């Protein structure tokens, strides 16, 4: 177990190293930041001064080494527009992203598994067909499109929920948020949950169908167990394996993939931070948020792998 964990850990670190390298070289292709900050008419000496300050006059390999060293110690540089350390802004926005993601994942798990089980039990019925078509619609709708439709339906037309995002005022806390402003969470949460609901429902359904046609379920039925006992005690337990895989994969994907939704609903998370940085050409912030998102993704996958190995000894051998 220990050697498995260490191997996985080293691999995760290698992945993070790769992520850093890709981010650095993509960012290296970007237009000259000194030019972007000063505009087209900036005089050459100011531009050169900025380049020197940012270390852009050094050769690529030196900059790459410096970037790796800084990023590895948690220093993501300073924002071009606010001059704050990027890490500080990210950590400030992190709670909002976590709240949004976890609540969306919670809803998605309950609804997705529920719909999936019902569809499998009543397979090829009207309910099954309708819910599977809806699941496919859920997969087909881009998140920002669904978000806007939600805004139109519930925010602008029915006026049940606020359209625009929650804004952290000075001195307000998450405690206040839960007590007074939870309704800001409703629309972005539902929007974010749509895709995982659909996918979890589809996976649960097909996995349940597989299990329901297996021998041990037939035996359980044959010995006269009630339908409820067969489904919950025998079938569901065995059907949940791929479902758990899907859910854990989606948790990682959601934490890093809520960007569009945060942007549309003006939700003060990491995604909004990244999107606000794009029109400002604030490269350190873009770079920092991309790296941070990938880091979370790798960490969650690492933890899930370890958890799996603990639960299922077969995994370790592979």
């Amino acid at each position, binding site marked *: 177990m220990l050697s498995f964990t260490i191997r996985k850990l080293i*691999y995760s670190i*290698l*992945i993070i190293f*790769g*992520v850093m*390298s*890709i*981010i650095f070289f*993509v*960012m290296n*292709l*970007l237009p000259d930041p000194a030019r972007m900050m000063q505009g087209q008419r900036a005089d050459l000496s100011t531009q050169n001064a900025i380049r020197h300050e940012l270390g852009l006059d050094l050769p690529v390999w030196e900059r790459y080494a410096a970037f790796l060293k800084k990023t590895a110690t948690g220093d993501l540089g300073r924002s071009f527009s606010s001059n704050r350390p990027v890490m500080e802004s990210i950590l400030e926005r992190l709670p909002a992203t976590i709240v949004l993601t976890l609540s969306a994942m919670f809803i998605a798990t309950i609804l997705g598994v529920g719909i999936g089980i019902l569809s499998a039990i009543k397979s090829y019925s009207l309910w099954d067909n309708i819910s599977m*078509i809806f699941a*496919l*619609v859920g*997969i*087909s*709708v*881009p998140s*920002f*499109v669904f978000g*806007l*439709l939600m*805004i*139109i339906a519930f*925010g*602008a*037309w029915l006026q049940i929920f606020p*359209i*625009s995002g929650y804004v952290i005022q000075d001195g307000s806390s998450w405690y206040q948020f839960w007590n007074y402003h939870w309704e800001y969470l409703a629309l972005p949460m539902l929007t974010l949950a749509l895709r995982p609901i659909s996918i979890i429902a589809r996976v649960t359904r*097909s996995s349940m*169908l597989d299990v329901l046609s297996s021998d041990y379920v037939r035996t359980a039925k044959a010995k006269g167990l009630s339908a409820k006992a067969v489904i919950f005690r025998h079938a569901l337990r065995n059907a949940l394996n791929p479902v758990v895989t899907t859910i854990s994969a989606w948790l990682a*994907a959601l934490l*890093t*993939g809520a*960007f*569009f939704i945060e*942007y549309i609903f003006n939700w003060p998370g990491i995604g909004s931070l*990244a*999107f606000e940085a*794009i*029109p400002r050409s604030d490269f350190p912030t*873009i770079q920092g*948020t*991309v790296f941070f*998102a*990938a880091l979370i*993704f*790798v960490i969650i*996958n690492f933890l899930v792998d370890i958890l799996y190995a603990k639960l299922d000894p077969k995994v370790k051998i592979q």
Partner: protein
Amino acid sequence: MTTTPIPTMEEMLKEKPRSLWYYSWKRLKRNRLAMAGLVVTFLIILVAAFASFLAPFDPNLQVLEYATKPSGFKGNVILRTNELQGREPIPVPIQSFTIQGDQIIMITDEGNTRKLALSKLAGSSESDWHKEPNYYLGTDRYGRDVFSRLMYGARVSLTVAFFSELLSIVIGVLLGALAGFYRGWVDDILMWFTNVVWSIPPILLVIAISIALGLGFVQTVIAIGITGWVDMARIVRGQFFSLRETEYVEATCALGFSNMRAIFKHVLPNATGPIIVIATAGFATAIIYEASLSFIGLGVQPPTSTWGQMIYDGYGFIAAGSNWGLTIYPALAIMLAVFAFNLFGDGLRDALDPKLKR
């Protein structure tokens, strides 16, 4: 599912042996939802290809007097010739007109009276220069026809998705094939690289690359294409892992043929099914990425109309509580295109792999 009588041995022997594709197509044809998806996809492709014939308006024709009109709005315009040679005639919105001698007197949309020589009109008969065009889905804030812009938007969506998916297929198949065929350290390095790309949120990678490459059609295709190959590489690698062990590949190697021949002539054709399934899913995702990019102002640039841009333009009207159609129509277009394609893709997966029941 319809029940067919089980054929006897004699009947089975009489039947001509057919290819996998024949049976897959037969299975696909029985799947009504998948066929519906295929038909809709085909219609969207037709609309995109023949947009210039089908669209009632030039998608970039601005009639500022007709800005943000509701769906079903009927215009009333006089067409006058454009002084610039070879340009389309200019529409002048009017309330009514009368003809006096060689002049036409118009009451314009704002209620002013304007005179114009008859010779300045486009065409000779009234049906030529007096039109009452239908704006089926209304107009945007520059008075452009939303319906026509949607049709031209399909063009951008489909072509960007097609070429970027093509790029993804090439990269994914190549890396997956090399990793799965050679295994060992080649596999380790290629899979490490695949996992690295997989770890970066795809939409952010697409955005970063398209900022780096600049805006435009080719840049957008590249940005989406070099991000979306991860699933393809994994599936192809998995296929190669198992197909490599088969006797016919062993035979190819034993006969002394090159590895490239084994890869491309013997293994790859047998992996076509899964490749097609992943490619259809990737195509649908590419449509979504294209729309997302143009929604945030990257991607293919104005005045070319794209669905994402149209949604962004309409987005500003939502809070004002009017012109929801400007957001809803392009949103529905994207949903319809991706949904139809996914329906087809789902059916295709079932048809190509009969072992997998839905």
